[in-house]
């Protein structure tokens, strides 16, 4: 064996330990980087060379075979799915909370109280049908009730608009993430063709994929070249190798699946008829669409039904009565064609707005003390004419409130559970891919010693060479 070879052996050790130290440093530097997987330098013994005239083979030092990342694809997938479900519930929680606030009258006034007040004012009127002040307060309380119908409608629509704004933002984010995954697909392919293992790019792609996956249900698999193929369930491919499809939103008419008028429809370039609003399930987009098209639409429909029924039933009695001027057939609420957007259109009739004397309390003309119409109207409060004769107006409104509450609380308990699951999954991922400072520090020292020792080998070889050279003197 030649001495120069010993130099080389020492040199490979130094190179390997330098690489290991650099990788350790890289790990430590990325301790807090989200989605980072710790890396390891894999070394293998250099192929021994047959030295002339010797029986045994002597090793030639080490070689860096590759730098690998410690990562479990299955766990990554679970984290991705868990994150999707969690963001689905978080997104839902956010908008349901806003919706709940609209109906929250636990600590203050709300429609429930105003409807009771409305009917009670008619009871007051039945006490003193000839008292003008009471008539004023009947009109005032009716106006307050009408205003609250408008308020609820407006605020629910504000939640809807908020949802639409988020939908628009999200569709842009989806496009940029899909683009990112596509770009990373190509970079990774190039790097792998060159023979390297682009660990950090792989981490980045996993991270982008995790974000992308949080928007809706999608399936991911690798094609032959190691590129991600992303399919959105029910919609079609989102990323295929070097191709990324685009999502966009546009305002459109109401449809029969609960999408309100002028709200956003989602379209995708990957779907045949491009409209995918009702195909998207799960994730943030799924949550927003579900709340907007199911929860909120149902709430508004029921609110409209309530507004229409109050207005219609009060009118039908009021029109039988006589006003203070002895006129029959005057409407109390303005006429509405149907339930469609009734909570928006409900208002006092012009006659009642003009004069409180147009409120009919009497069942016969010229009878200021007659209160029978007022009594009949106040009696509507306990009349079961909502929900096919099964519920009073109070019951009906209370059930809207409690339905909102049930939806919010069900989702919240699911969310808390999912949070626990995510904590668990993240822990598992951290155990596999996370960076431990202790371990890295220990490794650092170990590699430093290796570096020192490899240097020592060169020093010894140098001294040996010196000895050999000195022999000639």
């Amino acid at each position, binding site marked *: 064996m030649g001495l120069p070879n010993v130099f080389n052996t020492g040199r490979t050790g130094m190179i390997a330990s330098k690489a290991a130290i650099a990788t350790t440093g890289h790990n430590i530097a990325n301790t807090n980087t989200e989605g980072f997987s710790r890396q390891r330098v894999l070394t293998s013994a250099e192929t021994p060379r047959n030295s002339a005239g010797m029986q045994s083979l002597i090793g030639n030092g080490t070689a860096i075979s590759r730098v690998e990342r410690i990562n479990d694809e299955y766990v990554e997938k679970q984290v991705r799915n868990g994150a999707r479900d969690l963001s689905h519930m978080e997104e839902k929680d956010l908008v349901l909370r806003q919706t709940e606030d609209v109906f929250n009258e636990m600590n203050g006034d709300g429609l429930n109280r105003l409807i009771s*007040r409305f009917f009670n004012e008619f009871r007051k009127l039945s*006490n003193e049908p000839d008292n003008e002040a009471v008539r004023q307060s009947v009109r005032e309380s009716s106006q307050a009730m009408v205003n609250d119908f408008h308020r609820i409608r407006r605020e629910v629509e504000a939640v809807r608009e908020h949802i639409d704004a988020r939908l628009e933002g999200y569709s842009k984010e989806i496009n940029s993430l899909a683009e990112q995954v596509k770009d990373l697909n190509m970079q990774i392919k190039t790097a792998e063709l060159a023979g390297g293992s682009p660990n950090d790019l792989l981490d980045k792609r996993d991270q982008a994929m995790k974000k992308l996956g949080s928007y809706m249900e999608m399936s991911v698999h690798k094609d032959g070249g190691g590129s991600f193929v992303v399919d959105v369930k029910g919609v079609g491919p989102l990323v295929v190798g070097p191709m990324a499809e685009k999502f966009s939103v546009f305002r459109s008419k109401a449809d029969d699946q609960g999408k309100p008028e002028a709200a956003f429809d989602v379209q995708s370039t990957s779907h045949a008829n491009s409209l995918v609003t009702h195909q998207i399930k799960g994730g943030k987009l799924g949550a927003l669409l579900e709340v907007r098209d199911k929860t909120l639409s149902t709430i508004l429909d029921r609110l409209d039904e309530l507004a229409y029924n109050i207005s219609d039933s009060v009118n039908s009695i009021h029109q039988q009565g006589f006003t203070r001027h002895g006129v029959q057939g005057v409407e109390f609420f303005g006429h509405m064609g149907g339930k469609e957007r009734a909570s928006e259109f409900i208002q006092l009739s012009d006659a009642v707005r003009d004069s409180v004397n147009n409120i009919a309390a009497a*069942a*016969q003309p010229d*009878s200021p003390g007659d209160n*029978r*119409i007022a009594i009949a109207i106040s009696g509507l*409060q306990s009349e079961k004419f909502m929900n096919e004769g099964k519920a009073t107006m109070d019951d009906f409104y209370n059930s809207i409130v409690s339905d*909102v509450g049930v939806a919010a609380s069900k989702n919240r308990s699911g969310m808390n559970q999912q949070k626990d699951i995510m904590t668990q999954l993240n822990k598992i991922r951290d155990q596999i891919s996370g960076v431990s400072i202790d371990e890295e520090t220990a490794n650092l020292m170990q590699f430093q010693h290796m570096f020192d020792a490899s240097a020592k080998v060169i020093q010894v070889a140098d001294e040996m060479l010196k000895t050999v050279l000195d022999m000639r003197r």
Partner: protein
Amino acid sequence: MEGLQQQSATLRKLNTPSDDPIGAAKVLEIRTDKVNNDQFQMNTRMAETFLENTDHIIGELADIVVRAKEIALGQASGASSNEGTRLGVAEEVTQLFQQAVATANRRIGDRYLLGGFKTQRPPVDPEGRYTGDDGQTMVEIAKDVFISSNVPGVEVFNTHPKSSNDGRSVYSPNTLGRGPASEGAMDGELAYENVNVFDEIQNLRIALLTGDLDGVRNTLDRFDQVHSKLVACRAKVGSRLQGLQSTSQALERHNVTNAQLGSVLEDADMAQVVSDLTKEETVFKSALASSQRLIQPTLLDFLK
């Protein structure tokens, strides 16, 4: 911990519907009940005021009738009356008549009590003719319990009133499925001769002025009929007042029960909240303390 803090700040455990959806609906129901009951109690008090005043009016009318009968008795026999005394008391009878009309036209605020639905004009004109109707102002004093808060003058002044005097169709409760039950006129008693308070006093006056002793004597029996009718009316009003009181007490009890239920659903148990809060705080602190221990020591600390 945040939830507990909100509970302790508001003293309520129901702060949003999602805290307890079913309870929240129940609370709203109870509140509606409470508002309604308060209104029913207001109604009861209003009805009480009206009925008590009606009672006073009828009482005064009865007194007037008694006085008129005394006069009639005094003047009934030729022995105790002569033209002079008759003319003298006739003047008093005129006064009684005017007093009766004024009493019948008494009002609370701007509302005439005895006019049926015609509450905005005097129910009796200066000639003693009734201008009101037989409308009964029904008042809801508890859910679906109605009581009439007035007695139409036609029922008070006449012993055997005929049906609705103005002939207009009376609002039918059946068209709406609910409404005040009209007691209606006592049709079956039309066979009896009707006696009217004002007519009778007027009769007495005319009889006195014309010296018609038979006429004076005739009024005696009829004054008795009128008087017993007035007493019967007072008894009716009295029993209504009693009914009002018992209903009002029932409402009171209902309110108390509702308040208890509402409190159970809505109010936070402070002892529980505070002890939970302390528990959570301990957990939080120990978590902080243990994580402090966990984070601090690394190998680096020992390499210095």
